[in-house]
């Protein structure tokens, strides 16, 4: 094993042999102040407060829990919209947040606090400032926060020996996926803004570039490029508020819901026992929406209204001979009405289509059984 001296020698040799891609770092201990309205409040932390109109003007807060059970008995003003900008996108103990934003509604205004970390040693102050906002009566609202921002924050708190209060969270990415997964190319926040909220960003910084902008700032102390990050980050939080307000608005005016969202809204509503859901799904099914038919028929079947379910399956089967309705009908004929031949006919038709191996073997099994019954019957 080499001694420390040999290692130093080795180090200096690879230092000279490597491509000189190294960046010169400015050893500048003083802090670059950010422009107004940023306020420098701790040795390495600045804060900026922004105000805009609340998107929640005319709604009745107490009804939000139908969609978000966490909201039960909480006031809209307890919502805390938040987002982090981080030094890396893969997580892990070496990734930290350098910009954190929290927005809340107060007197019909949306107030957003952004905290900026000037350098690593300030992280403890940065986290303590955040902690002040995170009282346990709050409800966090995020976009993908459940799998990214929240665990990251927990890690940062742990590493500084702090405890992150346990607060419930509404992750709007999950809600968006339930609502729009089938009709949007992706459920990234940017796409939701563009296609649902009618918010169109100009000169926005792609999220992927954010870490490098921060590291460049650390090395050069030039803060201008950060302006784009601040703007991007602020918009993310505003959009969270607008998105929640939008979903809530649809919820209370279900019959204004756009045609192509009726099925997904209807499904959630039905799930939450709201009868408007049934109406929405029926409307969708009238427009030959297969998915709506599926949901409706399963609902009827579960609620022992087999006649209604069968009617839907028959109509669906007439429209297109697909597996779901075919199988349901075959089961119905075989077990309820004992029309073995009708069941057999459907199964044979299904077997002519392209199926996975597993489904194929199930169909084959069913067909053989039906054939036995058909002969013996």
């Amino acid at each position, binding site marked *: 094993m080499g001694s420390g001296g040999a290692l130093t020698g080795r180090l200096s040799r690879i*230092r000279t042999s490597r491509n000189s891609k190294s960046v010169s770092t400015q050893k500048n201990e003083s802090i670059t102040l950010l422009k107004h309205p940023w306020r420098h409040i701790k040795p390495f932390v600045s804060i900026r407060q922004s105000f805009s109109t609340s998107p929640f003007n005319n709604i009745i807060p107490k009804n939000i829990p139908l969609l978000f059970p966490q909201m039960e008995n909480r006031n809209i003003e307890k919502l805390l919209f938040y987002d982090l900008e981080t030094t890396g996108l*893969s997580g892990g*103990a070496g990734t930290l947040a350098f910009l954190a934003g929290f927005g809340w509604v107060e007197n019909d205004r949306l107030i957003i606090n952004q905290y900026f970390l000037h350098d690593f040693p300030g992280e403890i102050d940065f986290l303590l400032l955040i902690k002040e906002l995170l009282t346990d009566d709050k409800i966090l609202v995020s976009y993908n926060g459940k799998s990214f921002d929240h665990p990251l924050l927990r890690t940062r708190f742990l590493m500084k020996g702090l405890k992150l209060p346990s607060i419930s969270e509404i992750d709007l990415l999950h809600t968006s996926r339930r609502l729009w997964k089938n009709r949007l190319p992706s459920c990234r926040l940017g796409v939701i803004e563009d296609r649902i909220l009618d918010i169109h960003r100009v000169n926005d910084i792609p999220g992927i570039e954010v870490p490098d902008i921060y590291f460049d700032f650390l090395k050069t102390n030039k803060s201008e490029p950060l302006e784009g990050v601040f703007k991007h980050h602020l918009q993310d939080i505003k959009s969270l508020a607008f998105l929640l307000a939008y979903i809530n608005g649809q919820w209370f005016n279900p019959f204004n819901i756009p045609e192509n969202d009726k099925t997904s809204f209807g499904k959630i509503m039905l799930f939450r026992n709201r009868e408007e859901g049934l109406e929405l799904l029926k409307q969708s099914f009238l427009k030959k929406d297969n998915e709506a038919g599926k949901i409706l028929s399963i609902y009827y079947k579960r609620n022992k209204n087999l006649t209604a379910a069968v009617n839907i399956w028959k109509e669906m089967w007439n429209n297109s001979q697909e597996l779901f309705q075919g199988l349901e009908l075959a089961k119905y004929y075989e077990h309820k009405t004992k029309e073995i031949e009708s069941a057999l006919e459907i199964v044979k038709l299904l077997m002519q289509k392209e199926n996975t191996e597993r489904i194929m073997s199930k169909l084959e099994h069913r067909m053989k059984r039906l054939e036995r019954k058909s002969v013996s019957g």
Partner: protein
Amino acid sequence: MTNLKDKLNTLSLDRAFTDNVTRWEKIPSRNGKYTNIPEKVFPVIKETLFSRGITQLYSHQAESFTSVTAGENIVVVTPTASGKSLCYNLPVLQKLIENPEERALYLFPTKALSQDQQSELNELILAGEIPIKVSTYDGDTPASVRVSARESGRIVISNPDMLHSGILPNHPKWIKFLSNLKYVVIDEVHIYRGIFGSHMTNVIRRLKRIANFYGSDPVFICCSATISNPLELARQIVESDLKLINKSGAPTGEKHIVLYNPPLVDPVQGIRRGVVLESSKIATKFLADKIKTIVFSRSRVRTELIASYINKNLRNHFNENKKIRVEAYRGGYLPRERRAIEKGLRTGEIQGVVSTTALELGIDIGGLDLAVLAGFPGSISSVWQQAGRAGRSNTLSAAIIIASASPVDQYLVKNPDYFFGRSPESAWINPDNIFILLDHLKCAVFELPFQDTDEFSGPVTDFMSYLEEEGVVRLSGGSWYWADRSYPAEQVGLRSASPDNIVIINTTKGKNEVIGEMDLPSAKELLFQNAVYIHRGEQYLSKALDIENKCCYVEEADLNYYTDSIVKTDIKLLQNDAEDISNTCRTIMGDVLVRSQVTKYKKLKFSTHENIGYGDIYLPEEEMHTRSAVLVLEKNTVSGKAFALIDDTLKEEVIGRIGTVLKNVAPVFLMCDSHDIAVAERLKDQYTEEPSLYFYDSCPGGSGLAEGFLKKFPLILQAANDLVSSCNCEKGCPSCIGPVSEKGQEMVKGEVSKFLRTWLFSVIDNSEESD
């Protein structure tokens, strides 16, 4: 098994067989040494042991229990099937029941071993309802189970790769586990040698650092197969003192070990009958009498070949092969297929199996009677592990080891004393390999900032400022922080030195399938444009080596020649760390810069090795910093004087052959592959100005092999001498100094032999004087 006994008897009278046997060793049976289960073992554990028929412990198990429960680090070295896992399971379960907060981490080098241990541990725990939760945490663990492993796993079974890239970088998620981590089990510690071992030390450094951060300081329990330096290796891996427990109390049945050298077919060129046919033939003899047999072979292709030959030999339509089933078993089979074969072996439905090393470690296949080793598996400890597959605790078993033509095989089969004596092989590592160390320093600073005064192997300041120049860390307020968007552990693999592997793509007839990978320096020597590349027995012709995109396109080919590249190597000694003259030459240990360039290649005809053409290679030079031992045959030393006596026209050839033969036998002592260490011979070296031999580590930064080479040099020299003098060839063959060159220098082998003898005797005299 009277059956096996009779069969061995018959065989021992068969001249056609015994003529090729270089040693038939009968290791007598040995009684077990037992101790009562210690008083303080909890009743719930005792009951479990009773229910599994364990009423007493082997002495080494009891010794382990006493040491670990007293808080001592241990390394246990005992043979296969000696109840090794109880050495750690017993004390760990005891302490975990005693202290309900404490946790243990088990590290196994492979997933198969982890699974095996998990099921063994589960059986133990379920049998007696021991209230300890065991969780496996590896790449296959579903996300839903991971959380419960972290939160409530009292014993977590994982592997070093997962610890390195999954657990340590996310240590805050493991806070509960890590702050109560009390025991770390490192099984199969001898596997952690060379590069893998050098990485392992650094992973353990990181684990200790994080454990300390959370206020814990675990006890280490290591287990090793038999090598000559288990304690030294374990100490290098965990960097703490350990107690060596190496006296096995397990009983063993009588065992026959037979070393078999296939007969020469062509004595002049030193060609022997092939290992595949010989081992198929021998295994068939036993299988035909329904003796349960395992054949180990060194490659997947050979595995399939041997299995098919045996089945062909057994084929008989009239009696359905006497219902004897023989299966092949290797990597690349589906888990389901593998489990079925394992089960068949346990239940006795399958009598024979031909396997690669895939079956070597851990996997339970029940007792077999005979192991046939088709070629030495690369290290003597592997021989014992494979041979240990045959034999239950108190019955007769046998292992027949069939030598291939490779120098190591030929050396061992002709010098069986090495094999039966004290293990000659040691494992070497170099945890301070600068490249490996820097990689782990990146991971470490990602995990937790360094204070300016911190240490990691040594003071961190120099390294951190180096990484700061690279732009990945930042010094602020007296601490070093990771300041890069990447996740460094992702870019560091523990099992190889460089991530820059060349992917080999088969493009025959519009195909586009990846058939393998190779490190860049080797690729330049083996995959240059027009090179004939042999992969799993298939021939391919390299169409293009695209270094920039890290791939090589090959096409299937059917040619009667192979290619051999001519590498020009330039070596510069950069730093002379230590010098001495105890080996009757001057030896230097130091850092070197190796520049190599492949410039030309030869086309050589199969079987005759006749040169049928040349070609040029245009590839950029390869540069590597590594560690090297230098043997300088200085004028005033015995070796130098002996060398001076050689005819000038032969000197260059002779020094080249000396280098070859020393390099050929070195793996026996260094537990490495033959390509892990490289040699360069200089008739007049520019630095030493004398005839010199450089033995350097093929891994950038070194993996401890150059140091190991010097420490073991007298043994290596002895082995080289024994190999050359015992080889039957006339003028040199691939099994000793390499085939004779075209120049027809008949004298070379004689000169090499004479020189090695003189050198060896002077080294022996020298060491006796100094004793």
